[in-house]
């Protein structure tokens, strides 16, 4: 009995040990997260630096434009890489033009048009090693009015009360990513909104990557927002179509600006039409009658999704992909009757895909960047019965420019070039890597 009591008292001690110090224990919680810190520069300084400089590494690549033997590659919001592609098996990164806020490129002859936040800049590219700005149109893209007013670097949101003075205005020329660690003494309420990484898990280049468009001057993309047709530069913003007269190529003049639709994403010119992609459909604008003032001539609605579009004489090819930016759940290629887009029954055929992005068509060969599923090549001689004839796995592709047997593919990890002169034996020529 005595032994049992002794045992019970021992167990009691253990229980007391358990109850006593619980309040002494405190969990230690640390939260580490990335923040972006802007680096400012006066607009005047930024403009003075808009010229060819030494080549820099490819980091966050965006839209691409091919003109002759040169590739102009957008580094998102930083500027443009100039790449000598005389030998597609050995592309050479020649130089970099600093253009803060640049996302789009178009070329007419020896003049390159680039946006710089709200400004349109015309560059002389006659000597690709010595590219200089010829004209800057102030604040023509009002949806990208990201100017800040010194000395307190407050958002320059009141254009009417602040004169446009590049010496006293600031633009963001870079963002520095910093990891910040916060220690919590008690449990924080973990609330995530748009700053939450989980809320946006789309590859960055999907916002910007370009596909094909034939402007008669060079090639850019179906996600491009700039397109040159003859003497006009057409640009789309989120809600509007802006036309510039570039009959004197180094002296662009604003010709018209019309609001339409919403969530406008891309512009693709084909013959006398502009195919404009939005997250809810494709609009066709006619530029035959009055190229300075395009007029709506058709519309095709689809489920909400990102939708680069290209076209040929008969059909428009629209890839729909889901994602945070555009919403929706569709991942498919829609082939639409391009001759009669006023007809709501113009949808011809739907092909399911993994996560299609940019696309290009050269003759009867259709190239589709299918995200992580790589590049898919189709025989599109019969649009109602596409036959897959090739598949290049590996790179996570976003966009492709295909012309004369050379496919330039934009992928998450760099630019690939492929020789498809024999579509049954496509071979890789080179890769310029993103660092």
């Amino acid at each position: 009995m005595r032994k049992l009591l002794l045992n019970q008292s021992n167990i009691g001690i253990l229980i007391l040990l358990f109850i006593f110090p619980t309040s002494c224990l405190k969990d230690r919680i640390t939260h580490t997260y990335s923040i972006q810190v802007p680096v400012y520069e006066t607009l005047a300084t930024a403009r003075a630096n808009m010229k060819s400089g030494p080549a820099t590494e490819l980091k966050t690549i965006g839209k691409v434009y091919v003109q002759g033997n040169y590739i102009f590659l957008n580094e998102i919001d930083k500027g443009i890489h100039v790449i000598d592609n005389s030998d597609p098996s050995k592309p050479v990164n020649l130089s970099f033009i600093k253009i803060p806020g640049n996302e789009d490129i178009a070329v007419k002859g020896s003049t390159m048009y680039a946006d710089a936040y709200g400004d349109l800049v015309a560059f002389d590219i006659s000597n690709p090693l010595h590219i200089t700005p010829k004209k800057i149109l102030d604040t023509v893209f009002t949806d990208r009015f990201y100017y800040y007013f010194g000395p307190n670097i407050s958002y320059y949101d009141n254009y009417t009360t602040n004169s446009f003075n590049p010496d006293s205005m600031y633009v963001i020329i870079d963002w520095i990513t910093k990891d910040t660690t916060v220690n919590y003494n008690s449990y924080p309420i973990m609330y995530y909104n748009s700053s939450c990484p989980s809320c946006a898990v789309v590859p960055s280049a999907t916002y910007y990557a370009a596909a094909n468009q034939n402007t008669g001057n060079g090639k850019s993309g179906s996600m491009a927002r700039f397109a040159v047709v003859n003497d006009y530069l057409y640009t789309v913003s989120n809600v509007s179509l802006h036309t510039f007269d570039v009959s004197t190529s180094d002296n662009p003049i604003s010709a018209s600006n019309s609001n339409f639709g919403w969530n406008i994403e891309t512009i693709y010119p084909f013959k006398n039409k502009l195919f404009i992609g939005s997250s809810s459909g494709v609009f066709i604008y006619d530029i035959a009658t009055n190229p300075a003032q395009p007029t709506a001539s058709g519309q095709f609605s689809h489920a909400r999704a990102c939708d680069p579009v290209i076209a040929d004489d008969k059909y428009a090819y629209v890839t729909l992909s889901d994602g945070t930016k555009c919403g929706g759940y569709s991942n498919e290629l829609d082939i639409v009757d391009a001759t009669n887009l006023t007809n709501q029954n113009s949808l011809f055929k739907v092909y399911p895909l993994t996560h299609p992005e940019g696309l290009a068509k050269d003759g009867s060969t259709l190239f589709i960047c299918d995200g992580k599923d790589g590049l898919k090549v189709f025989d599109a001689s019969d649009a109602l019965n596409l036959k897959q004839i090739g598949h290049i796995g590996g790179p996570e592709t976003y966009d492709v420019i295909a012309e004369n047997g050379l496919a330039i593919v934009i992928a998450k990890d760099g630019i690939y070039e492929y020789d498809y002169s024999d579509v049954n034996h496509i071979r890789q020529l080179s890769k310029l890597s993103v660092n």
Partner: protein
Amino acid sequence: MSLKKYLLSAACLCFIILNGYSQKNKTLRFHSINQLGLLNGQVGSAFQLQTVNGIQYKTWFAGAGVGLDYYKIRSIPLFFDARKEFGKTNNVFFVYADIGINFPSATDKEKVYLANEKYPNRMYVDAGIGYKLKLKNNTALLFSAGYSYKKITEQSYGIVPPPYGSPPFDSFDEIDYNLERLSIKIGIEF
């Protein structure tokens, strides 16, 4: 094979080898300790389950253990266990120490991040004192209390949408929980 499965397989193999070896060598004796208990700390109380298998040599014991730990974020600790008994009677005090790796196995309710989350393996420690009440046939009841620590890290990678015209940027988000608990266990040894 994942590291978790590999380590669990290794633990089972150790169990079989040690059991066989102890049956041949009379100075060494195989023991299996199976415990359930409570973990109590700042976020409240949670259950834990453990099985520890190893060899006893005189008053020393060493073995490998695996468990289920439901505190804050469910995890599977895999650990080395060492213990020493004090006293010459049938019923003795003992001290124990466990150190190992914690394999998180978070439920959906426990996750802070909604997507692209990762839970790397982190440290697990448990140390305390106990009382062993011997029963018949080499069986004993164990009561123990101690300090238990586990670290859980939740990570999320993604792309943050552009603020004010900046490009989207790769984002890294991490929450580190250093969880200190009082651990009480009741178990049976055979």
